[in-house]
Each structure stands twice: as C-alpha cells, then as structure tokens.
C-alpha cells in the first residue's frame, strides 16, 4: 500500500469534502440560490470525475487504514450514489426555489448526506460503518424537516429522528456486544472467539440488536412503521433521496459485513434474516394495496423491494460474485425508477400549494402533463417488473440469484409479491390515463429542468430494460476486477 495509490483511491472523498467546504464558505460570503446550486453541481460532477484516476490505480482494491477498503465494488456504488445526488439536486432546484425560505443550506445537507453514503460501500470496520450511517442520517433529519410552513415535514422529521436514533442506538449496542464477544471491530475478524457458552450468547444477542437496527434503516417488517409517515411527510425529493441513497448505502455496507465476516454461518441469524425478508415481501405488498396516497404506496412498495433484495444479501456469504452482481444491477434499476417516481411527484407539484401526491391528484395526468406522466407510467411498470423495463432485468437477476442459492421459499414469495404488486402499480397508471375532469391548466409555468431530469430517468429505465448488455458487462467486469 503506497501513499499515492491510497490518495488516488480516496480522491472522491477528498473532492467531495473540499466541495462541501467551498459551498459552505460560499453561503457565508453571499447567499445566492443559483450560485450555491451551481457550486453543488460542480462539486458533485467533480466527485463523479474523480473516480476515473483512482479506478485505474485501484487494481484489486486497496486498504485505506484499517477502516476502509476501496475497490471496484465501492466505486460502482459511489458512482451510483453521486449520480442519484446529481439528479436530486437538479430536480430539487425549482422546488427549493419556490418553497423554502433558507435555500442554500439544503445543498450543504445534500452534499453531507452524499459524503456519508460514499463512506458506506468501502467501510470494513464498525467505526466507519457508524460514521457513514450517522452522517447520512443526521443530514437527513434536517432535510426531512426542512420546509417551515407546512405541518407534514415537522411531524415526519420528528418521527424519523426519534426512530432512526433508536435504531442507531440498537446498532451501536449490537456492535458493542459483538465487540465484547469477539474482541475486534473489523468485519473480517468478527466471530465468537472464546467458544464459551456466554460469549456465544452475547454474540447472538449483539447480532439480534444489530440486525434489528439494520432492518429498521432498510425498513423491513416488523421495523417498518416509520416508513410510510416519513415518506409522506418529507418533501418528495428528499423522500426519493432516502429511498435510494440512504437505503442503498445501508444495504451495501451490510453486504460487505456479511461477506467479510462469517455471520451467516450461524443458523439462527440466517433464519432470522430469512424470516424478515419473507414477511417484508408479503406485508409490504398487501399494505400497499389499500393506499390512496402515492408516496405512502411507494413507501410500502419499497418495503417489499427491500425484502426482495435480501435474497442477494443471503447469497453474498457463499457466492460473493453473484451476490454483488445481483445487488448492483438491482439497486441501479431501483435507483433509476424510484428517483423517477419521486421526481415526477416533485415536478407536478410545481406551482401548487401542497404536493400532488394522492391518487386523485394524478387523475388524468397523462392528458395534462404528458412528459412527467409518461415517465411515471414507465416507472410504475418498471417497479412492477414488466418486461422491457429496467425493473424486469433487476427482478430477473434476483430470481436467478435465488435459484442459484436454492432459496425456493423466497423465490416463490418474490413471484407472488410481484403478482400482487402489478395490481397497485396498474392502479396508478389507470388513474393517470383516465379521462380528465375540468379544465386543462395549461397556463402553469413548467419546471423544465426538473422535467428534463425526470425524462432522462424515464428513458434510462426503458433503455436499460430494452438493451441491458452494456450495464451487465460493466458490472460483471467490475466484480471480476474486484477479485471474488
């Protein structure tokens, strides 16, 4: 490990942190929304570009102190998170401009949350896991409760803060017990050393706490209670960020934990995770059926989606290459379609007092606002897993992975859940294509930056669904380079 390689590997983190400071100083010197936004975009684009020199120097991955291990896998997730942040910033611009009194700090929080999420994919130590997780969470509390004038965000922010804080405490307590039992906080050395009965008990109790906290962050049943309220109350664009980057980051770090330690060699822990996944798939889909609010519906659907994704988590212990490949493809697809859905809600709420998120609000949307509505159609089809969309490729990967790992029950539930899912996703589409009532409000000034970004996401969902080969090749190459 020489210094230059290490520095190159860390380049994205350095660039992003520096950019964060620049934006902060910029806000101190002069408050201009457009300047703050532009600096944020420059920072994010520079971070994206800074992955290139590092990637060539990386080889099979390099350790940065004992806390991080930067390799191809962390880079691909980094790129995914930064791209999600870029789309969030682009779509958020109009929304922030017209709704918030203090606009500039929003981007600081966005950059800080992105920085935290970049730490997660390369974390190999409990300290880096905790730091990454908390930088994301604490920035998100403020982002959720950011709008001052309306009631929903404060409620959502308080609920998110208390419950997320409790889950962090559970993760911390679990880590403490695991450390007590194993004497190490590095992922690769976490295992009960003593062989004594008491050490084993504390190891198991520790994992019970740890996994409940993680399930909380991923909103898996029975720790999902916060999800619909926070999704509904938070500004749509922040909800999109929570649903993608925050959950993706937690999922990736847990995957690395499972891969490097031998947690899943414990039958009890595997069974518990299996059970949580199975219940999430069923409960998420069933509760989504009766939702009248688009954001709540997407919240329950995200519970089911995270349940599906646990298949990849269970596979990663025995077959890391397939597990990671599946997770990358699935998360990439999930990111694109989820951001598209929340982006559409943000865009169509432009110039209206409240967010247009109920099923009634989107009635006949296709006739009033064709581009956002068409994107939402594509996104809903993709979330349902209809062929020729990215969602189908993603689900197909999970299906194949489940068969590879011989998890027949979970694969069965995945199919069943997708079948139920089609019903409520189609309800969105039916609502949008129904005959419009009343006048067309064509006088509304559109948020063209937002519509552009949303349309790109929609096209990406379709494009990657029709021709996924480049993405799949890239991912396979990366996984091979990372040396599994």
């Amino acid at each position: 490990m020489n210094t230059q390689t290490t520095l190159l590997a860390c380049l994205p983190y350095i660039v992003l942190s520096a950019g964060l400071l620049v934006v902060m100083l910029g806000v101190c010197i002069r408050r201009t929304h457009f300047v703050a936004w532009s600096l944020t975009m420059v920072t994010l684009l520079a971070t994206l570009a800074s992955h290139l020199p590092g990637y060539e120097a990386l080889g099979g991955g390099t350790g940065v102190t004992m806390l991080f291990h930067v390799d191809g896998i962390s880079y691909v997730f980094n790129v995914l998170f930064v791209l999600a942040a870029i789309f969030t910033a682009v779509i958020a611009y109009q929304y922030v401009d017209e709704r918030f009194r203090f606009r500039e700090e929003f981007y600081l929080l966005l950059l800080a949350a992105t920085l935290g999420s970049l730490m997660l994919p390369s974390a190999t130590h409990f300290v880096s896991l905790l730091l990454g997780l908390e930088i994301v969470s604490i920035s998100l509390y403020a982002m959720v409760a950011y709008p001052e004038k309306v009631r929903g965000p404060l409620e959502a922010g308080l609920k998110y803060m208390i419950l997320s804080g409790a889950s962090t405490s559970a993760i911390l307590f679990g880590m403490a017990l695991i450390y007590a039992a194993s004497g190490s906080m590095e992922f690769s050395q976490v295992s009960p050393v003593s062989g004594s009965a008491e050490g084993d008990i504390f190891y198991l109790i520790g994992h019970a706490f740890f996994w409940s906290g993680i399930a909380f962050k991923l909103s898996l049943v029975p720790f999902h209670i916060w999800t619909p309220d926070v999704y509904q109350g938070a500004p749509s664009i922040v909800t999109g960020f929570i649903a993608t980057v925050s959950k993706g980051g937690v999922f990736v770090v847990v995957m690395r934990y499972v891969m490097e330690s031998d947690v899943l060699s414990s039958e009890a822990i595997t069974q518990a995770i299996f059970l949580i996944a199975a219940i999430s798939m069923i409960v998420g889909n069933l509760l989504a059926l009766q939702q009248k609010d688009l954001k709540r519906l997407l919240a329950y659907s995200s519970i089911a989606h995270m349940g599906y994704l646990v298949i990849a988590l269970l596979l990663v212990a025995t077959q890391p290459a397939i597990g990671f490949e599946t997770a990358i493809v699935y998360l990439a697809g999930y990111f694109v379609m989820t951001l598209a859905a929340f982006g559409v809600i943000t865009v169509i709420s432009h110039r209206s007092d409240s967010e247009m998120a109920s099923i009634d609000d989107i009635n006949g949307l296709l006739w009033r606002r064709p581009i956002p509505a068409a994107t939402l159609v594509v996104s809903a089809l993709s979330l349902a897993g209809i062929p020729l969309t990215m969602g189908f490729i993603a689900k197909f990967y999970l299906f194949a992975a489940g068969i590879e790992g011989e998890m027949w029950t979970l694969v069965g539930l995945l199919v069943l859940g997708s079948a139920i899912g089609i019903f409520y996703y189609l309800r969105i589409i039916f609502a949008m294509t129904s005959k419009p009532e009343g006048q067309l409000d064509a006088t509304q000034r559109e948020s063209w930056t937002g519509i552009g970004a949303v349309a790109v996401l929609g096209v990406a969902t379709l494009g990657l669904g029709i021709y996924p080969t480049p993405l799949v090749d890239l991912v396979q190459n990366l996984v091979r380079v990372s040396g599994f």
Partner: protein
Amino acid sequence: MIDGAGAIPLEHVIWFAITLFLIGVVGILIRRNVIFILLSLELMMNAAAVVFIAAGAFHDQADGQVMFMFILALAAAEVAVALGLVVQLSRRFKTLDIDAVSEMTG
C-alpha cells in the same frame, strides 16, 4: 477494574448495560414529552458506550475507548439537530407533546 482479582466480571457490566438500554426503549415507548424521549435516546447510546469501555478493558485494547469518543460526538450532533426540531415544535404548537403533531396514519 474489569480484569484481575476482585474485579467486576464483564458479564455483569453487559447485563447492567442491557437493563439500561431497555429502560431507554421503554422510555421512548411510553413518554410523550420530546425532551424525555431524547433523554431516553441518550440513555440507549450510553448503554452501548458502557459496554464498549468495559469490553475494551476486558480485551486490553484502546478500541473501546476510541469508540466511546465517536459515540459522544455522534450523540452531540444528533441532539443538536433534534433540539432544532424541538424548538420548531414548541414554537408552532406551543407544546412539547409529540402526539400534538401526529396526524398521519394508515
């Protein structure tokens, strides 16, 4: 003293911490005042910190105490944001009762 003659065994510290943690959980569940909920959260984090310190001493490593520092910093950051929200709550609703804002269900 965790190690050596007459020391407190690690298990006792852990059971103590588990009790502390559960008191925190119960506090979050039954208290309706936001300030008390935050106190309960703090209690849960500090329960973890106690175990880290004890386990670090047990294994003869500094890691446990390093982790304690991180927990302190983290709890401070969390409380800073949380109190901001509490100020918002008391300004807008003239109460610290968490149920006052709760209207989303389903």
